[in-house]
């Protein structure tokens, strides 16, 4: 398997290796939108009492996936904009949806996954979209690690539920036509050995080793490396450890998947941790007592392609893998550029920290330099896991040469953000490429919708 690029940034704030339980909240704030899902069609009325596991809203554009009530409680619809609020929470046995009919449009097991809230854990490996429940899946790619700083770690979840994970894998294998590829980090840890042992001899489940470099755990990168091309009639699924555990919970235990393990990490947190929390858990309560007493920025997701949490997000989203908190830069340094840099971790070798072994750097949100023209250092190209040339696309974008950009393979970009992270000229390469791609898909491929990146060449 050929994997290229990637880089393990050594940043301070990696969440610790155990999972803490959070106290039951007094109210849940469920955001109606997350990265891919828009729960716009409400099914409940203001003041209505619902039971845990009942659907509160549907996402009409994403195959009518339901937004489940994580706990029993009373619905407040207009209390917070963009959120469904649940108050007066109670611990009750969850509501179970009716048994799906065997002859329906969707395979009954898949319908269970949808009804019990496990479907949003699935990704189309090529486009990252929510996979179509009616479309057969050719294969599935399971990434047991999540290498983006600081998403929830796969090993932490595996350590406490390896058995469930292996059981979930077999259920997953029964849902796809060919193979389930399990990406296991190339690591000598005892857990990796146990995982490999557990996978050995399983039919239609294949372990593939990946190096521990972000973003080589990305589904699209793995799909390309495994030679799984996009097909029109079948999809390739991508999911992570928590996704396999969700499948197991839905199909073996028949329980709605409403709690999830999330991470709270980054340089702005006193003690980076993993937390088990129901969806909609108030962000404020999650962070209370964990933040450093300095200006910080809270990011939903990881450092490299998360989204800044504005006033919009009050509770933990359906798809949120965790929160990353970064310090805002404090003060400025006199003659920063002539410092020895013993305390700076850089991809280049221009700082004395190259002699420092295992040091990690507490990052801030500073851009750390002035915007300059591209000096063609080639770092972006070296790191790019998709094998494209961000510096070239930058130049072409300057000339508005969309067709050229398309020809340079910009649609292969997985948006990992490494190019922008390393750029010494501080160019916003990720944003430029994604913006160009949006226009390309809209304008250039508009007449021939079949010819998008998902279609085989």
């Amino acid at each position, binding site marked *: 398997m050929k994997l290229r690029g990637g880089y393990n940034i050594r*940043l301070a704030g990696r969440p610790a290796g155990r999972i803490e339980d959070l106290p039951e909240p007094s109210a849940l704030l469920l955001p109606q939108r997350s990265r891919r899902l828009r729960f716009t069609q409400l099914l409940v009325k203001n003041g209505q009492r619902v039971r845990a596991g009942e659907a509160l809203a549907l996402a009409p554009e994403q195959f009518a996936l339901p937004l489940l009530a994580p706990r029993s409680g009373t619905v407040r619809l207009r209390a917070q904009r963009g959120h469904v609020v649940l108050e007066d929470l109670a611990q009750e046995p969850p509501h179970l949806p009716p048994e799906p009919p065997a002859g329906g449009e969707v395979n009954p097991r898949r319908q269970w996954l949808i009804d019990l809230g496990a479907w949003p854990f699935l990704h189309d490996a090529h486009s990252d979209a929510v996979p179509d429940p009616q479309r057969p899946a050719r294969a599935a790619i399971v990434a047991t690690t999540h290498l983006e700083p600081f998403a929830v770690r796969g090993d932490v979840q595996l350590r406490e539920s390896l058995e469930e994970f292996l059981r979930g894998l077999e259920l997953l294998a029964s849902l796809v036509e060919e193979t389930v590829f399990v990406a296991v980090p190339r690591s000598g840890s005892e857990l990796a050995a146990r995982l490999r042992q557990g996978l050995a001899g399983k039919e239609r489940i294949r372990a593939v080793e990946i190096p521990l470099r972000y973003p080589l755990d990305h589904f699209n990168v793995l799909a*390309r490396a495994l030679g799984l091309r996009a097909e029109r009639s079948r999809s390739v699924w991508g999911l992570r450890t928590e996704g396999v555990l969700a499948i197991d919970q839905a199909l073996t235990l028949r329980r709605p998947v409403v709690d999830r393990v999330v991470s709270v990490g980054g340089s702005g947190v006193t003690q980076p941790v993993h937390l088990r929390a129901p969806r909609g858990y108030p962000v404020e309560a999650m962070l209370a007592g964990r933040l450093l007493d300095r200006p910080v*920025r809270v*990011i939903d997701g990881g450092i*490299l*392609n*998360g*989204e*800044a949490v504005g006033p919009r997000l009050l509770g933990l989203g359906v798809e949120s893998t965790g929160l*990353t908190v970064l310090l*805002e*830069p404090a003060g*400025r*340094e*006199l*003659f920063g*550029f*002539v410092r020895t*840099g013993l305390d*700076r*971790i*850089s*991809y*280049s*070798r*221009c*700082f004395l920290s190259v002699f420092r072994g295992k040091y990690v750097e507490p*990052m*801030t*949100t*500073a*851009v*750390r*330099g*002035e915007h*300059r*023209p591209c*000096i*063609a*250092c*080639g770092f972006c*190209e070296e790191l790019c896991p998709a*094998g494209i*040339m961000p510096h*070239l696309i930058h130049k072409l974008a300057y000339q508005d040469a969309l067709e050229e950009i398309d020809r*340079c*393979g910009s649609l*292969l970009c997985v948006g990992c*953000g*490494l190019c*922008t*992270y*390393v*750029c*010494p*000229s*501080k160019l*916003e390469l*990720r944003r430029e490429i994604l913006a160009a791609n949006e226009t390309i898909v809209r304008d250039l491929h508009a007449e021939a919708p079949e010819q998008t990146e998902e279609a085989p*060449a």
Partner: protein
Amino acid sequence: VKLLEKLFDLTRPLFEGRGPLRALRPLSQAAEAFFLGSAEKAEAAPFARDPLDSKRFMMMVIIALCPALCASVYFFGLRVLAMMAVSYMAGGVVEVAFALLRKKDIHEGFFVTGFLFPLVLPPTTPLWMVAVGVIFGVLVGKEVFGGTGRNLFNPVLVGRTFLAVAYPKALTTGYVIPGDGWFGRLDQYVSLANVDVLTGATPLAMARQGEYASLWDMFVGSIAGSAGETSALALLLGGVFLCLTRVANYRNVAGILGSVFVLSAALHLADPARFGPPWWHLMAGGLFIGAFFMATDPVTSPLTNGGKWVYGILIGALVVVIRHFSGYVEGVMFAILLGNLASPLIDEAFIQLRIRRLQLER
């Protein structure tokens, strides 16, 4: 630091918006960036950024050139420092003037150009000539193309070529016998007036007559030549440092030095009487300074890794051809300029190959 921050905060309104000094905004920004660095925060993902910025990047080149500067001052005296001061001032004026005209930031790239330029001139070049050369180099070599990052040719070499063509006499006879002993020429200010120090010939010129300078002298730098190009040792120290810090790409350097070595060796084997030994040619003239510090300029060399090898080999071959089969005794300058010219073409070929491979994978 706090005081400086206050100062910049206080004076900022003067330069911004409709402030009275708004025309000088690039200057105030450059000063602020120089002292305090950027205050900008990342607004979009990725939210953290690598600490390397272009100031640091350029500073690495200057650090790497310091051994060569020291060697140069030792062998050729204090005049080198005067040349450097003139080069910085004259080139700096052009850079700042263009930044003000364009209302863009002042770029750091000039610090390298200004440092490198006097080092490729004979140590007795008149100071006004240094100024004219660097102004021409920065203006025609860089600014007319749109400034740092957009130039086709290496500005240092454009400036030097201009001088070599416009004032051929000064640039071929201005060489000086290097100093020796404990202090070299550290206490001297050589010029065309102290005639006792002058000679007319660099080792490459003498080699045409069949006289080869000793390898050891060439390694240390105790030979006549341009101010900063003589000491192979100092340049090697700096060059290896640059390659290790990955500011310079080893592919360019290895391509050039490798092809010069192989081709000179082939010629030497064919006719030892006419062609010098390969080791000798490696250390002669401006090959090291050119290979380590000019051919590695990322802007004017190819972007692609394969292209970098081709570019290096092309330059190396041109050096050997010009040195042995033309009226010029030294060819590094022309070879690199020709290489610069070819680099977009070389890139185009490699990029097309790359794109074809990507499309197959898609």
